[in-house]
């Protein structure tokens, strides 16, 4: 497994897989958008429920992306696998973008439905904290010239920050929030009508495929960036006159 996951093999494998991932993401996204816009309007919210089909997948991806970073961080700390750090670093800006989208689309949904753009309730505040965690991880990576030296401190910070993920998920159950409780992943089954649930699930698959495609492409870029850096260091060292 670890031998298979070396950067050279990853580059060869991802080169052939990536076009299919892009095509699948575009295709499922197109189907999801058609289904979303053909879904019935909500009896209370009207057409404003259309925001759900982008807000909910963005929020799921915001958390899933952090789970990818946390899993990769375990790989960095336990096995010191070079691809693990590459995976975490490539996922961070993508996760930040999905978290930003969850916050902005949630705010645009909240204003007409709740009458306010923002409240400091547990769900909204914990998601804002997730966004700040992403920015913190990106800043810490960029604070080191050598990515190999940044890997362990960033991995430790990422694992500490993972405590926020269950807080986000269960915040609507543990505290009294303006945000509604979970309506899809519940022990007693989804409470959304199937006519809205299916477009939502297709959009969630589309966003996941898009994340996978962007993540694999960003991982390839990160590997190339490290190769370029290593070659520049090597080139610079040959220019230093011998003592």
């Amino acid at each position, binding site marked *: 497994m670890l031998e298979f996951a070396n950067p*050279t093999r990853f*580059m*060869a494998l991802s*080169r052939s897989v990536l076009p299919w991932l892009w095509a699948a993401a575009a295709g499922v996204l197109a189907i999801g958008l058609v289904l979303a816009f053909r879904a019935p309007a909500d009896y*209370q*919210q*009207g*057409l*404003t429920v*259309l*925001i759900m089909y*982008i*807000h909910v997948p*963005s929020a799921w991806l915001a958390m899933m992306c952090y789970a990818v970073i946390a899993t990769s961080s375990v790989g960095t700390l336990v096995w010191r696998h070079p691809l693990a750090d590459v995976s975490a670093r490539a996922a961070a*800006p*993508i996760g930040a*973008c999905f978290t*930003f*989208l969850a916050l*902005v*689309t949630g705010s*645009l*949904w909240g*204003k*007409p439905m709740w009458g306010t753009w923002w409240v400091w309730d547990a769900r909204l505040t914990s998601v804002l904290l997730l966004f700040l965690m992403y920015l913190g991880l990106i800043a810490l990576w960029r604070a080191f010239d050598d990515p190999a030296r940044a890997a362990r401190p960033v991995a430790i910070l990422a694992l500490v920050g993972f405590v926020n993920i269950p807080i986000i998920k269960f915040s609507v159950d543990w505290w009294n929030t303006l945000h509604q409780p979970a309506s899809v992943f519940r022990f007693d089954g989804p409470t959304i009508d199937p006519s809205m649930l299916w477009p939502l699930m297709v959009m969630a698959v589309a966003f996941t495929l*898009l994340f996978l495609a*962007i993540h694999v*492409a*960003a991982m*390839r*870029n990160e590997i*190339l*960036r490290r*190769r*370029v850096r*290593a*070659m*520049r260091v*090597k*080139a610079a060292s040959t220019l230093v006159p011998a003592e």
Partner: protein
Amino acid sequence: MSHIGFIAAAYAITAIVLAGLVAWVIVDGRIQQAALGELERRGIRRTGRQRGGEAT
């Protein structure tokens, strides 16, 4: 009940951010490929590069 402005803004911002992400990975990939190609043209080789491996 219709809030077309809120719906349009949500979809527009999502489209801009996701398109920006896709554009970023494509442009960044081309920049890294160009930098690697330039270094290889100067005769600099990676340590531990496998024979027959991918040029990148």
